[in-house]
């Protein structure tokens, strides 16, 4: 099944996972910068992480024939100390020149604090300054609805923003409509224990504007499944979607959004 994995944290995964992705038909993979599961102790830790995302990981993926792209930022979980976050952000422009960097992400909110919001807005401005697409993380569980609303309110204040170049990720049934109605793309994350199940995601495809939705596994160091996207394709097949319809969602949609970066060539 030809598909794109638009959100995976492969630095946390094994080489065996790359093999599985290749065997399953993964045609390209995108890796947003995120939290390592613990707070990094210095900006130098982020410098090395950005090197890993832009230099090492594309080579590892290439061994399995998978083009690897990335997004850069400091994630919201490490944005509470705004001074620290700004130091890290000052490292990012150097890496924006790298050939596989698509945009700024995954920025957003975690606990919906004032500091997280300030750093989020500075990232949006960074993306605007460099004319880059934006990938936005919405908070977990009980914080998601409030965080999504705060993000939408904040984005509305950026008059120069092209909403078609922004994807707001991890939507669920209580946030998907507000994101799509505001003109943004929305991402649905397929997790075994939280976020969306494959069949809930397919329900949302049926109920909302399918042409501005993508599916991702967001596989990382936690409970997650790197094959979740292609398994959802299989569930779509069980629900009598044609091969063409499945490919539209799993391949054409992410390709259309990601191709807004001239670097996304597959």
């Amino acid at each position: 099944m030809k598909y794109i994995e638009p959100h995976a944290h492969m630095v946390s995964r094994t080489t065996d996972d790359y093999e599985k992705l290749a065997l399953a038909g993964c045609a390209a993979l995108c890796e947003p910068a995120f939290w390592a599961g613990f707070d990094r102790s210095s900006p130098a830790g982020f410098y090395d992480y950005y090197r890993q995302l832009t230099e090492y990981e594309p080579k590892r993926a290439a061994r399995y024939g998978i083009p690897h792209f990335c997004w850069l930022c400091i994630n919201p979980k490490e944005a509470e100390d705004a001074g620290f976050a700004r130091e890290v952000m000052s490292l990012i422009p150097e890496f924006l020149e790298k050939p596989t960097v698509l945009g700024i992400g995954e920025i957003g909110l975690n606990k919906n604090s004032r500091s997280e919001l300030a750093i989020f807005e500075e990232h949006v401005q960074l993306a605007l300054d460099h004319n880059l697409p934006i990938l936005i993380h919405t908070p977990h569980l009980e914080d998601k609805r409030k965080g999504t609303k705060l993000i939408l309110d904040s984005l509305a204040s950026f008059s120069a923003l092209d909403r078609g170049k922004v994807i707001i990720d991890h939507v669920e049934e209580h946030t998907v409509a507000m994101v799509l109605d505001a003109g943004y793309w929305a991402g649905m994350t397929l997790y075994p224990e939280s976020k969306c199940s494959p069949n809930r995601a397919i329900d949302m495809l049926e109920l909302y504007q399918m042409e501005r939705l993508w599916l991702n596994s967001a596989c990382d160091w936690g409970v997650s499944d790197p094959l979740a996207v292609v398994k959802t394709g299989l569930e779509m097949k069980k629900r009598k979607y044609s091969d063409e319809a499945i490919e539209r969602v799993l391949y054409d949609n992410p390709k259309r959004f990601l191709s807004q970066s001239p670097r996304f060539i597959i």
Partner: protein
Amino acid sequence: MPTKQDILDLHFMDARFKLIDLAAFLDRVERHEGEADFRFEALKKAIPLLLSAQPGGRAKAILDALSDPSTEPIEKATTQGASGAPRPASVPL
């Protein structure tokens, strides 16, 4: 598109399994000693929405019931994790 019967054939057993698992979870928590927990209370409050919420909006209604109802940013994040239900102000982190 699949029919109602097709969807039932595909997903009934899974839904049945999850419903029984939820029932057993409620019994399990109540069977054990300990303090009341805001997460458990929030879950019990959300369960009736399975039947009372507007058809087509049940998942949204339950997610809404388990969401933080406040609207302003908090002054400072003192934790990084989430608990799955809004924490009452009276419950310390």
